[in-house]
């Protein structure tokens, strides 16, 4: 694909731009999961929040899950942000438009790489034994990112036309978080558990965690189903993106 080289250039450009204008640099990738873990642990210890037993110490559970969730939401908003940021370029130059999406994915990967340092530190600090299946965790993570990208890519053309999408999405990801077992373990029964189970992000995110900690995927059937949804969704979204973008560009000022 001719856009790979361009995507790489754009990735290098964006990461350089980002970190050259920042004093604390990669520090910002660590802060949100730590802050979330701190707050939630305090709440949990004070019995304000009652989340049930987790396989690993709760602060580690939250930090690890938050890092994964963040990666997911980055994949969702990524395509939308990428199209918005590249507007002046898109309006003037005809270049392979997948490149900005690939570059954005590269950024998601880069950011996860940084978070990985935090996660490794976490496992060492809490002396959590890791399962050998951890080497399979990246596969599940890729499926999770694919799902996020599918959603973002599908919305990106519409978001470039209507600002409502971006606003709605901020709200939606906030709500989505509560229906995904990030700050609490997977609920076993009740109607809430049903909703959480129907959420396609649930089996994918759980699978990454399970592979790292438990050494097996708790619910392989749901995992493969959700992976299928992610794969097909990504294919469809990519098709829509290709077809839709000329109409969007038409409506951008040159």
């Amino acid at each position, binding site marked *: 694909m001719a856009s790979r080289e361009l995507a790489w250039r754009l990735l290098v450009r964006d990461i350089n731009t980002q970190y050259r204008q920042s004093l604390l640099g990669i520090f910002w990738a660590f802060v949100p999961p730590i802050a979330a873990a701190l707050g939630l642990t305090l709440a949990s210890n004070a019995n304000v929040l009652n989340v049930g037993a987790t396989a690993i110490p709760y602060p580690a559970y939250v930090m690890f899950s938050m890092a994964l969730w963040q990666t997911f939401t980055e994949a969702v908003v990524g395509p939308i942000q990428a199209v918005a940021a590249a507007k002046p370029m898109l309006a*003037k130059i005809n270049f392979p438009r997948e490149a900005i999406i690939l570059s954005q994915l590269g950024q998601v990967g880069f950011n996860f790489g940084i978070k990985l340092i935090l996660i490794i530190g976490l496992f060492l600090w809490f002396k959590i034994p890791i399962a050998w299946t951890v080497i399979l965790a990246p596969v599940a993570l890729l499926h999770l990112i694919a799902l996020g990208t599918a959603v973002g890519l599908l919305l990106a053309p519409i978001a470039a*036309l209507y600002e409502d999408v971006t606003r709605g999405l901020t709200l939606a990801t906030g709500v989505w978080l509560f229906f995904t077992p990030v700050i609490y373990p997977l609920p076993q029964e009740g109607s809430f558990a049903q909703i959480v189970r129907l959420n396609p992000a649930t089996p994918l995110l759980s699978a990454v965690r399970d592979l790292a900690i438990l050494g097996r995927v708790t619910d392989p059937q749901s995992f493969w189903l959700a992976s299928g949804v992610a794969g097909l969704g990504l294919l469809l979204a990519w098709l829509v993106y290709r077809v839709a973008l*000329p109409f969007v560009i038409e409506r951008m000022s040159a």
Partner: protein
Amino acid sequence: MKSLSSNGSNGSKPPSEITSASSDVVLSVQGVSKKFCRSLKRSLFYGIQDIGSELTGKRKSDVLRPNEFWALKDVNLTLRRGEGLGLIGVNGSGKTTLLRIISGLIKPDAGTARVRGRVAPLIALGAGFSPVLTGRENIYANMSILGLSTQEIEDRFQAVVDFAEIGEAIDAPVQTYSSGMGARLGFACAIHTDPEILLIDEVLAVGDIQFLGKCHRRLHQLREQGTAFVLVSHNPQAILSMCQDAIYLHKGHGVATGNAETVMAQYEADLFSGNVSKTAGVMQFPRKSRSESLGLDLVTLSFKNPSGQALETLTSGDPARICIQFFAQVAIATLNLRISLMKEGQTIVYMGGSNDKQVFNVSVGYHEIQVDLPQVGLAPGTYTMRVDMRKDALFILDICESFHFTVESNGSMSKSIYYQPRTWKLLSGDREVDRDAIRS
């Protein structure tokens, strides 16, 4: 058309005249139409509608929906290697839309635009420049967006830097560059992509005069190497000097196609509402109504000889008089006249009333301003004269964009680019020649 290909190593196909003629076509636009919508809300809604119908394959693009209009309707053009094509038309006639379709940014609603090879839009100079990154990093990113591989960029890198005259500043962030430097770098990147087609929109307003000259030289060089051009400009000289052919767009329709001079003449005729007549070196302007007038209207423009007879052509070295007749609707205390004589888009002579300390005080009524030229200094050739009349320095009262005229040789002009008035003399004998000067 090339009759001989010297570097074609695989001569498997015998070059026939027909194939080489069609392979020379780098751009072919056929029956292209494009509709736009005037209302933003509706336009966005139509956007969604179009995406939906395109995906389901049920798109009907040949009907106008409410609030839509044809920005382009049934435009045709072909461009071959090394050709220059001018796009002319008033603002909003569809020139930029056509360029955007050619560059593949937007899809036409009907018709096709086929491009062979790389298109470099000189519309989007420095697109994708990141202000905090250095010039070096930006060159890589920008040229990559323009479609070059890393290896290709590395090969051209030094040429780009040299051309842009950035020098040491190449490793400084682009936001510290002056606007001229930024524009130069953008231009240098675009021009070094070795495109098959260059799209140039409006004036190449990059940097100072010196750099502008360099840009024009480079464009000329590319053209000789076979790069085709599409040039959008309001400047008749720029079109005439760079393009053999032109298309005149009016409200999205291609009203005239063909030889640049013919098309330009039609455009100018339309621009002056078709009433301007020019006979025997005299340009007559239509009478303006009170609402059209800005207080002063040009009536005629002509060249005369000192005895007052109209001159159809000027002659280098001969006297001439520029006569400007006008009607003042109101009294103007500081009437300021500016005359530019131009050749191929470049001003050769500029005569400004305020520079010459010639500001007039005119009452209501007809007047004539005469500018006497004791000897015409222009070299033989075709020129255009631009005349504008102003109140003070800025308020334009009336303007004549282009009055075409020809200068003929008086027989002693070979090798000269301007006429130097002179007298010759021969001095002989000791008394006449200053021999002290020779001795010392």
